[in-house]
């Protein structure tokens, strides 16, 4: 049997077993996951539909935006997919233990690269279904398009996803094979990227013109780029619309263009992968870290933290050093917050500060929402599995003359300190750039800090309740039952904290709430915020501590 067929047959076995495992799960869990997935799709559908209605109500250039939004959507999706698949391809092709295992077998490298390319594309793209389906459905609903629209969207989406995945894989292959590994080079790249971004933002600010398309481009950055005729996302958007509108020849032409480009990218991945895999793999595993490393990272901090009890200090330093020595962890955090910081820093370039008060108010709450969402996802990704990641070395903490409650409290305080600093910093930046009043500024920072505290406590507490010391893979811990519950509760908690304030302020600036009622509303929302934060911080930590104390190791 061909090795590629053998590998796919193996995946088929695994898929069959997954179904078997799913059948063994408690029915409550299955219903919960299905309900959550459907709720999420439904929520996205409603959100997108509401967005389209909002645009229609705006009048003027809204028709142009709606028309181009489809291209912009695929542009954004494609860009995310390229970035995501660059990272996924690196870990799937070069860093997975399966690759090492398969390399000891008689597998043709072309087959190995093809298999891994498809695997990484599937891994990095499946979640986009949760965006493509509700967006397309909402668009079709709003524009009153026929059922065939769904078929055409599927027909165009598949090659588009493979094309973007292929571009990501090509970037990963080139990076591993040829990009220099030294710090000076990467430092230069970061500085150049920042300069480029700064320059672009500056240009954006100075080139204000009156034409509609330019104004639209201010409101929705990237609109012009997304509508570029040679961009694949434009072929997808135009192709779907052509087929839906009965222009079959144009639609077929665009689909064939997309397919031909996808096949070329696929061939390039195969060719480059086959030609460079061995050299790239050797470069990766044979590379030595010749940097002179200090025997102690953050040595000065040891002295600085002398005010802490010795066991707490030990745990704090261990966790900080482990975090800093794991580029996967800090780079993800940096990307998340760095992108948000860049976005906030560009507010004045997009003239958001000159928007009417109603809009600025809306933007402030949307920003608290985005910062809190990132906090939720980071807490789920890093804080929730941190106890499980102690893994087989948990006995060291277990045997140490310190209590389980103390271990949990230390984990919480360290994580909370990081999350609170970042969220408060980002909200200060956003409100400063928007030039909002001191009341709204204080409120935005306060809400973001409260959400950070409770979400971190929830992730720490539930992480202790659902601790899994046998699982070496953090992704498996996160995607388990406990991880899913944690994410859902975090998002619910965030909305529960944010909505009372958001509604009070929105109704006030739109004139639906008098000043007296506005003050009363704020007082009530503040009492609710304090109560909720207190409960959601203390209860999960208490539950987690109790669970750790009762557990046998």
């Amino acid at each position, binding site marked *: 049997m061909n090795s590629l067929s053998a590998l796919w047959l*193996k995946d088929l076995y695994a898929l069959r077993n997954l179904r078997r495992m799913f059948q063994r799960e408690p029915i409550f869990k299955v219903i919960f996951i299905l309900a959550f997935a459907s709720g999420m799709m439904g929520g996205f559908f409603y959100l997108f539909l509401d967005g389209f209605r909002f645009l229609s109500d705006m009048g003027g250039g809204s028709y142009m935006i709606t028309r181009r939004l489809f291209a912009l959507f695929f542009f954004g999706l494609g860009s995310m997919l390229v970035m995501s698949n660059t990272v996924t391809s690196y870990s799937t092709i070069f860093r997975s233990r399966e690759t090492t295992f398969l390399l000891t077998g008689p597998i043709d490298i072309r087959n190995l690269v093809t298999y891994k390319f498809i695997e990484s594309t599937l891994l990095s793209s499946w979640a986009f279904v949760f965006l493509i389906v509700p967006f397309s459905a909402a668009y079709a609903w709003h524009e009153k398009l026929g059922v065939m629209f769904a078929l055409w969207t599927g027909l165009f989406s598949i090659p588009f996803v493979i094309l973007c995945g292929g571009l990501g894989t090509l970037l990963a292959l080139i990076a591993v094979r040829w990009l220099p590994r030294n710090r000076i080079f990467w430092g230069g790249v970061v500085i150049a990227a920042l300069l480029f971004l700064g320059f672009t933002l500056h240009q954006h600010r100075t080139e204000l013109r009156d034409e509609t398309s330019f104004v639209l481009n201010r409101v929705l950055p990237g609109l012009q780029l997304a509508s570029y005729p040679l961009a694949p996302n434009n072929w997808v958007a135009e192709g779907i619309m052509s087929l839906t509108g009965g222009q079959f020849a144009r639609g077929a032409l665009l689909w064939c263009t997309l397919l031909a480009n996808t096949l070329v990218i696929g061939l390039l991945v195969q060719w480059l992968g086959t030609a460079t895999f061995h050299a790239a793999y050797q470069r990766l595993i044979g590379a030595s870290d010749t940097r002179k490393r200090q025997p102690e990272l953050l040595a000065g901090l040891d002295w600085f933290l002398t005010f802490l009890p010795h066991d707490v200090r030990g745990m704090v330093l261990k966790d900080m050093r482990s975090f800093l020595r794991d580029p996967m962890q800090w780079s993800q955090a940096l990307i998340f917050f760095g992108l948000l910081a860049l976005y906030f820093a560009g507010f004045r370039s997009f003239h958001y500060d000159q928007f009417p008060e109603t809009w600025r108010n809306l933007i402030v709450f949307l920003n608290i929402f985005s910062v809190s969402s990132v906090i939720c996802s980071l807490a789920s990704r890093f804080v929730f599995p941190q106890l499980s990641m102690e893994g087989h070395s948990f006995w060291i903490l277990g045997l140490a003359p310190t209590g389980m409650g103390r271990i949990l409290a230390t984990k919480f305080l360290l994580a909370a300190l990081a999350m609170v600093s970042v969220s408060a910093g980002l909200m200060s930046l956003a409100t400063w750039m928007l030039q909002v009043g001191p009341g709204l500024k204080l409120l935005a920072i306060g809400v973001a800090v409260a959400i950070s505290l409770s979400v971190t406590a929830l992730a720490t507490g539930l992480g202790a309740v659902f601790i899994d010391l046998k699982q070496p893979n953090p992704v498996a811990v996160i995607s388990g039952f406990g991880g899913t519950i944690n994410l859902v509760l975090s998002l619910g908690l965030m909305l529960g904290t944010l909505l009372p304030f958001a509604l009070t302020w929105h109704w006030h600036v739109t004139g639906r709430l008098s000043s007296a009622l506005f003050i009363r509303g704020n007082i009530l929302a503040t009492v609710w915020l304090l109560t909720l934060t207190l409960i959601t911080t203390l209860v999960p930590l208490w539950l987690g501590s109790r669970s750790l104390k009762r557990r046998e190791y």
Partner: protein
Amino acid sequence: MIRIQQLNKSFGPLHAVRNLSLDVPAGELFCFLGPNGAGKTTTIKMLTGLMRPDSGTVHIGGYDIRTQTVDAKRIMGYIPDMPFLYEKLTPVEFLKFIADLYNVPSSNLRLTIEDALKQFGLNDMRSALIGELSHGMRQRLLYVATFLHSPKVVFIDEPLIGLDPHSIRMIKNLLRAKTQEGMTILLTTHILALAEEIADRIGIISNGSLIALGKMSDLRAQTGVEGKLEDVFLKLTESGNETA
């Protein structure tokens, strides 16, 4: 069956393997010993084609591992100390996958798998997922998988890790039986008693260089130590460390 000539590998300033030359004939059980960081795993990685040497050649069954990689891999098997296994497959599915990879003829495959699972005491776990197996059972499954395509050469890194006394006895007997059938086995271990008990020849590597090679009697003669392999090993590696 295994021919290594002037093998070298460096990681930056560290010369992990230096000028290693060795011939292991068919049907021999060769034990490769050395202190931690001596270069054993690097050597095995180069022999299995996972790592490319800076210079030198490796031939497995007459095939050059660099230029005839797929042919060489077709006749060899490798058991690492911390093996990767597909956790979401059952043992039977995993073995069928390995059979497909190595193109094992499908006639009698089912019977062969059944017999092997029985022989290794895994028959009751044939429908369990590999993720549910204990470490010892996984290790046994790996032996079944490695021998499924009847390789001519097998490399084993620490063969007895995590195994119970019954399994240890079984593995020892199996390795002996396989070499008697003509299979060549090269294994690395820190359990010197195992090497002394089952090896036809022993090679000791220290600081990347082969410092001793031969049967037990040869090693004793070389060191002048009339005792167990442990004494011989310590004598050799101590002097190796002193020179280093």
